[in-house]
């Protein structure tokens, strides 16, 4: 395991959603090259955790920081979020969709992370939807849309990938391809945090299993290889 | 008491104001009853607040 400087540190995270406490005092750290896999039953707070890391749900308490990242950027500005929604505009063509995100999202390549720097065309080819580049995104099937959404992560280098059930709605073949990309990202020195209901074949996995419990103690964290 | 030629307007404005105030009072009172009943219903199911003194948030 390559050990580097980049490290996403969460301390005593507490989140309220809809006036209700989702979890309390959750702490963990993920280093470069590592994938944190968040598991747990329905409604336990996996998506909420990822959205918190993405800066989309406000913290009720606790701190979140990225050691070794660019100092003048917030952690979420150095992260990609790949959730249930595709952020694909059906009225734009596939390459227009992608080009917009390339110009719009600020890239971020801290020391020790090598983002790969795909061009939009290469990214689409890599994901096997190069032939659709000039079609309106409305013509894509659900799986193709998801792959288009994924190519966003390739064209703008950012060290942290937050992925909420990334394999959902994908068939087996597409799932393998996705895992390959995630492993490459880890090898490049990136960090992956993913919530899932299935087992993912990633290189360096740490599991964060959320489960209902007494207030206060609610997580088991185990390091697996 | 003689309220002059415009007594109707005076009485109407006082009466309607009193009605409005009464409506406001009824609103807060009924609302209170509703919430109390809901709390009691929940308490009957054994669901009560377990952090009576911690501030919210």
């Amino acid at each position, binding site marked *: 395991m390559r050990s580097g400087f980049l490290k996403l540190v969460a301390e005593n995270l507490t989140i309220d959603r809809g006036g209700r406490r989702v979890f309390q005092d959750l702490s963990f750290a993920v280093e470069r090259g590592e994938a944190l896999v968040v598991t747990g039953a329905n409604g336990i707070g996996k998506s909420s955790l990822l959205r918190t890391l993405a800066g989309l749900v406000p913290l009720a308490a606790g701190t979140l920081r990225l050691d070794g990242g660019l100092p003048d950027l917030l952690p979420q500005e150095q992260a990609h979020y790949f959730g249930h*929604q595709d952020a694909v505009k059906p009225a734009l063509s596939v390459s227009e969709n992608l080009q917009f995100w390339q110009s*719009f999202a600020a890239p971020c390549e801290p020391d020790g992370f090598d983002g790969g720097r795909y061009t939009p065309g290469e990214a689409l080819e890599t994901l096997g939807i190069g032939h659709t580049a000039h079609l309106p995104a409305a013509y894509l099937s659900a799986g193709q849309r998801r792959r288009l959404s994924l190519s966003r992560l390739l064209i703008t280098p950012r060290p942290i990938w937050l992925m909420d059930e990334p394999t959902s709605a994908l068939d087996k073949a597409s799932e393998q391809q996705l895992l390959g990309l995630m492993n490459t990202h880890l090898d490049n020195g990136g960090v992956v945090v993913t919530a899932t209901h299935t087992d993912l074949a990633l290189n360096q996995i740490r599991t964060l299993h959320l489960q209902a419990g007494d207030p206060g103690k609610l997580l088991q964290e185990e390091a697996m290889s | 008491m003689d309220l002059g030629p415009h007594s109707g307007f005076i009485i109407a404005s006082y009466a309607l104001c009193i009605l409005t105030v009464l409506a406001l009072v009824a609103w807060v009172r009924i609302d209170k009853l509703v919430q109390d009943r809901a709390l009691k219903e929940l308490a009957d199911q054994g669901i009560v607040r377990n952090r009576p003194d911690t501030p919210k948030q």
Partner: protein
Amino acid sequence: MSGWAMALFKRDLRLSVRIGGSALVGVLFFLAVVTVIPFGVGPDLNLLARIGPAILWIGALLATLLGLDRLFQADREDGTLDLMMMSGRPLELVVLVKCLAHWIATGLPLVVAAPLLGVFLNLDPVSMGAVTATLLVGTPALTLIGAIGASLTVSLRRGGLLLAVLVIPLAIPVLIFGVSSADAAIHDPVPFLTPFLILCALTLIAAVVGPVASAAALRFSSD
């Protein structure tokens, strides 16, 4: 405009043009309101000419506000808004650019259509020019103020009507000075420039307050 702003601007413009011609719907609504009023008021041409600028302004106000509900909603529903907040770009500027693109796609057509509709209302050329000028200066303010309503109602499905209700009180000063400078241009004695300059000032204020308040509301609504 820096690169990202230009990309956003172009994208929003493209979307407005491609998706069912939002511009067209706005102008059609404007047309519908303006044609419906004579059916109600009756075909008295003098009366129509007198209230013409008001009708055009009210039509433009409603068309602008009611067309704003999708300004952020579309982006929120497909997750784009989340990504925008993570993009590392100042949200206030993002809002401003989106408003600009939206105004060009839907506000400008209203301004262009106004003189044509003026013909139906028996407006003379001077009033037509005046109304068009005030609309040109005033509708951006409506869009910018409306953006506040759009971001407040971004998470509510039933945005349109509520947005209008929330924003109309905020838009009243714009309406007052818009109509009064148009009227001033028609009835010579009153100076045209004073209310017109106030209208310009209102637009500038809206260009600051709108995006700031709107960005704040968007940040709070993210979840």
